[in-house]
């Protein structure tokens, strides 16, 4: 069964459709993932002689994995990270040494082996690098007295909270979140972060349970970066979040330990990035919405910033989902407190405001080749639907005498 662009919209809007659309899409994603990994490995092997042994080592390990372990590996950022940059560096290990993307992929596969992490093959290879499950739920840490398996915290029951892996520490100059310095998070701060993110997902579940399901289906790990100490002053304080398809299923949020990062802001950030992950899964299966070329770019009607055409297409779905969430939260009150309630009303109006432009959103795109008619139709329907919600409240001009 194929997921259509209209299905993507329906899953956000109609709780009766979310389970079907999400599960069909995820199954399709897991169908294409091994083929695409195989193609990437094959290209990598053919590039250089020394790559052959690396690929064979990985494939030998992969063959030992059962179906569930393979699925965990395929759903991990190590696969998408390798496919994005087969010759690149994935992250730095605990000793600050670079780990290549093929090494990271192999390590993740070995971590899923039934006899790992004490498998002979791992021995020297893993020195200083730790052993971590592909999805990051557990990590083996080395102590003077031996090894200890540590389970990472989870939020929303299934999403791994990662504040300290190589991935969580990664430096990315082109990223909006991971270009910021990495500061270590204390156990007290970790407890605050976990509690806040947990409360944020509860908020989504209460208001829009179907979007809670969408989040859990397409987000497997939340990477929290602390870039500023609790007491330090910064203006403006960077409270950004991000999703990058190079790390499939991983969303990134900045500075959750800070009080300014409230539960409602966290809820919006989680949903925002998870919808990106959801849309990216669709694009992996069915092809990109449109070119990611950035030479000529439209302006976002929400932020006024230049964004790639492709990001504008994502933004329409993202803000559609956030409008659902905030609209419900504002409507039901949800015990969020007066200040949070006011903030959410303001955010709701901001999100809706982006849809209130005199043009159809489809006309904002500046493309070299025509966009999918189906996508453009859905984008305009979303805009129309949001506008219709406010049409009852839209005033005509009021003469002063009637005011």
């Amino acid at each position, binding site marked *: 069964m194929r997921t259509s662009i209209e299905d993507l919209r329906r899953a956000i809007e109609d709780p009766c459709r979310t389970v079907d659309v999400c599960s069909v899409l995820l199954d399709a994603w897991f169908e294409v993932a091994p083929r695409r990994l195989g193609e990437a490995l094959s290209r990598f092997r053919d590039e250089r002689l020394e790559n052959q042994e690396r690929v064979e080592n990985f494939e030998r390990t992969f063959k030992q994995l059962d179906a569930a372990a393979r699925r965990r590996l395929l759903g991990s950022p190590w696969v998408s990270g390798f496919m994005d940059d087969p010759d690149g560096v994935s992250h730095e290990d605990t000793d600050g040494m670079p780990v290549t993307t093929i090494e990271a992929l192999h390590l993740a596969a070995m971590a899923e082996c039934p006899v790992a992490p004490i498998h002979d093959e791992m021995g020297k290879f893993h020195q200083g690098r730790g052993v971590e499950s592909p999805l990051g739920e557990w990590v083996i840490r080395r102590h003077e007295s031996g090894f200890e398996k540590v389970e990472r915290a989870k939020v929303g029951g299934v999403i791994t909270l990662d504040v300290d892996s190589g991935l969580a520490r990664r430096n990315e100059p082109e990223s*909006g979140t991971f270009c910021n310095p990495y500061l270590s998070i204390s156990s007290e701060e970790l407890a605050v972060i976990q509690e806040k993110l947990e409360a944020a997902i509860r908020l989504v579940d209460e208001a829009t349970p179907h979007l809670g399901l969408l989040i859990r289906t397409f987000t497997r790990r939340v990477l929290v970066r602390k870039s500023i100490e609790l007491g330090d002053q910064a203006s403006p304080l960077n409270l950004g979040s991000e999703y990058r398809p190079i790390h499939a299923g991983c969303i990134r949020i900045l500075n959750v330990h800070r009080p300014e990062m409230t539960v409602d802001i966290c809820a919006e950030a989680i949903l925002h990035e998870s919808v990106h992950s959801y849309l990216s899964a669709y694009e992996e299966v069915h092809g990109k919405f449109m070119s990611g070329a*950035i030479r*000529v770019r439209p*302006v976002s009607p929400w932020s006024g910033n230049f964004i790639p055409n492709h990001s504008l297409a994502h933004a329409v779905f993202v803000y559609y989902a956030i409008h659902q969430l905030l609209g419900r939260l504002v409507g039901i009150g949800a015990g969020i407190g007066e200040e949070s309630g006011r903030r959410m*009303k*303001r955010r709701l109006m901001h999100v809706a405001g982006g849809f209130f*432009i005199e043009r159809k959103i489809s006309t*904002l795109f500046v493309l070299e080749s025509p966009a999918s008619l189906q996508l453009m139709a859905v984008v305009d329907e979303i805009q129309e639907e949001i506008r219709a919600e406010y049409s009852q409240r839209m005033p005509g*001009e009021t003469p*002063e005498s009637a005011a």
Partner: protein
Amino acid sequence: MKIPTIVIHSDPEDVVAAVLGDVRGVSVIHLDELTRNWRVQEAGIIEPVLEKSIPSMCSSYIINRVFDLSCTEIGKRLRTFRLHENWAYTALGSVLSRAHALAHGIGPRGVSRSLLPLNVQWKLISERIPDIRTPQFAFGFGHRMPDMSHLDKFVQKSVWSYFRWNGDSDVVEGEQQWHPFFVEQPQGTPIICSYHGEAFTLSFPKGRPKADLGVFPALVYACRELFDNRMAEILVYQEDESLTFCACSPYMAGVGELREREQLLLRGVPSS
């Protein structure tokens, strides 16, 4: 017979408002006057309440020159209540909805077709008029610098600054490092085409070139259609047989210098 005309402007120094300020049959209103009693509240839709002293927009031709809200009273109130500026443009749109015609689109820059960034203008115009050239450029993304290896004699420019091409920096604070934009300076002789409706006049700041200028009616038509500007100035450079389109600006900054400024602006007013 020309239909009643109202100029609504947000810039107190607006050139068109100044030229038409004393002309019979034309009312000139600053946006602050229009929005004085508009109800703005936190997280609410703006209600445009109109005073009796404001002329009726119904069936009028509106030269809506609201290109920026930042220095207006309504802009201040938006900031106070942290409301998206689209809500003010939406309220303005509802007030202007019964007009006979509007001179420009309604909305913030980049979103309104009347205020597109330069490289988007170039893309649209070169698709419409294949024979016209547009400047070579490079556009960075965020803090990332673009590849400029294909550019010759380039300057860093603001992507929003339509008529500053003399090489002086027009890059405002924040643009230097954020989405940096580099452009090859056009060569040849500059020509400015000021138009309103189908009426246009050409001016030659550095002398009149010898070449055929017959392309301008089509260029004016294209700019009206593509950029939703019934009134604007077009800057082109003529070199040998070719024309380079640089910008279409709704600001009309140079119209005040034209001898026939009032006639040009009135000739473009639609007839009833």
